[in-house]
């Protein structure tokens, strides 16, 4: 694929697809190099400390998983609620999910101190641990995603020509779709919310120690995952004019994203307001860091204004939603808002230290 981009004589003016692929290849090479450095020299190169042991890797990991939430929610809509029109979108979402979870798993492999022992959670169980539950769910759900995407790969023309039997077998897996959608729904609901609970169960960090984190993680993941799915679909259609879009289905999904954002903002508002009533030392301090401290810009502009309020308005006003560029901007803002939310949650809890004396 990359050879297309590095043969300039053949393409005097590289088309948008070539530019895209070249950019993608650059990022992948940089990522590979960074990964090798971490593996050989250890996590010391990441500048993580004992004060903030979870940083950028975790944020990427959480965001990648959140962005994959389109897969389970749209598959459930198609195969459990019977909204057959969304089937092409669910296919795209499932593929994005496969990429997202691969990315998350690869990031986690680099983020843990002993990548050679990644399989330990599957063998040595601690059912008390939320992170154990997340690991099991992610592993099982990744398997579900592989089976769900198998028909897409099975349908590739060259596979059909070369190995018709394998192709037939993979395409046949499509019959399992409703069962897989159900399994995916269960596993995803479990771990998407548990990623919030991973933070929420920690007494040591008062700003995290609340029941709402799991609900907020779930809602933001559904909004972000579906937003990325629609965004990817429209961008692909731009690059490959052959692809036909179902305008009505896209419209339905984007409106749903808009309403999800409204619910998310509503719960977020009460969650933040209730924090001001508890006067818990670390919690009040953390909230202050978010609303008027070093995270204020990220919080008000990145998370609330651009991440939730503006896109929900753009996606809920029918005329703006149907306009191509406003919808694209709104969807990109949703994705950015979810990443900003994960980043802020992760950092603020670690930076506000608990006093030793009550």
């Amino acid at each position, binding site marked *: 694929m990359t050879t297309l981009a590095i043969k300039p004589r053949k393409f005097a003016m590289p088309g948008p697809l070539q530019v895209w692929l070249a950019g993608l290849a650059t990022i992948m090479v940089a990522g590979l190099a960074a990964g090798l450095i971490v593996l050989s*020299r*250890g*996590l*010391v190169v990441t500048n*993580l*400390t*004992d004060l903030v*042991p*979870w940083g950028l890797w975790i944020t990427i990991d959480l965001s990648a998983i959140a962005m994959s939430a389109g897969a389970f929610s749209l598959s459930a809509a198609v195969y459990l609620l019977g909204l057959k029109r969304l089937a092409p979108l669910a296919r795209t979402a499932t593929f994005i999910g496969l990429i997202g979870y691969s990315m998350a798993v690869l990031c986690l492999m680099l*983020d*843990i*101190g*002993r990548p050679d*022992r*990644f399989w*330990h*959670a599957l063998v*040595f*169980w*601690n059912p*008390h*641990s*939320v*992170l*154990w539950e*997340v*690991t099991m769910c992610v592993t099982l759900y990744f398997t579900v995603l592989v089976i769900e995407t198998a028909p897409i790969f099975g349908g590739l023309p060259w596979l059909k020509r070369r190995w018709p039997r394998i192709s037939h077998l993979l395409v046949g897996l499509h019959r399992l779709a409703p069962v897989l959608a159900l399994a995916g729904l269960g596993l995803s609901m479990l771990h998407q919310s548990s990623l919030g609970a*991973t933070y929420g*169960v*920690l*007494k*040591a*960090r008062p700003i995290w120690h609340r029941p709402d984190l799991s609900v907020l993680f779930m809602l933001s993941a559904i909004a972000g995952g579906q937003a990325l799915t629609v965004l990817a679909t429209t961008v692909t259609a731009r690059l490959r004019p052959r692809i036909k879009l179902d305008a009505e289905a896209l419209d339905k999904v984007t409106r749903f994203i808009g309403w999800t954002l409204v619910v998310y903002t509503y719960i977020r508002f009460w969650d933040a307001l209730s924090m001001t009533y508890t006067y818990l030392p670390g919690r009040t301090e953390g909230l202050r860091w978010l609303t008027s401290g070093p995270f204020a810009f990220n919080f008000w502009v990145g998370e609330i204004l651009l991440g939730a309020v503006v896109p929900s308005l753009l996606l809920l006003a029918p005329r703006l939603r149907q306009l191509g560029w406003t919808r694209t901007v709104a969807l990109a803002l949703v994705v950015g808002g979810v990443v900003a939310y994960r980043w802020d949650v992760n950092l603020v*809890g*670690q930076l506000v*230290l*608990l006093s*030793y*004396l*009550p």
Partner: protein
Amino acid sequence: MVIDQATCVGCGRCTLACQATNDINPNIAWNVVLKVGQLDGQDVYLPRPCMHCEHAPCVEVCPVGASYYRADGIVMMDYDKCIGCRYCEVACPYGARAFNWETFDGRNPAVPLWGETEVERRPRGVPEKCSFCFSRIDRGLALGLTPGVDAEATPACVNICPMGARAFGDLNDPESPVSRLLAKYPSYRLREDLGTGPRVYYLPAREEGAEG
């Protein structure tokens, strides 16, 4: 363990003995001494080992069960099981854990001046913490000694303290040094409100001449 803040002068020898005995990377520490305030013009210190909580958040959250309770209550680390996710480090209210961000393969500067190494060095990529010198306790018990009474069966930080600010022993035994101190003086534990049940007790700094 009981730590008397009234007698601790913050010399930091407990940290050095710990570094040597447990062969810890000089960039990290299991046992730190913090300056927390002043009383009668004297600095007050807070030495902080692992609290060996009765309900330890690190044990609850570890996805692979690498942090676990020993039968005697010591919170242990299985460094061969640990995957290095650092959830325990984020979960500990006392900041008692330190991660091996890089390989420690040099000479330990605390050896031999502050003690001899008694346990295996941990690899890069796992968090580590105070173990109440479990190897000294186990060997001592096997020899029929009493931890907290006989130095050979007592954690290194307790032995080295020039002020005798630390005491160690079995909290279930009313005759142990720790039980006697706790019966005599008022004490507190760090963040008891969290319900972790720390097993390190502090005797607060007292005003000059005041009896506990």
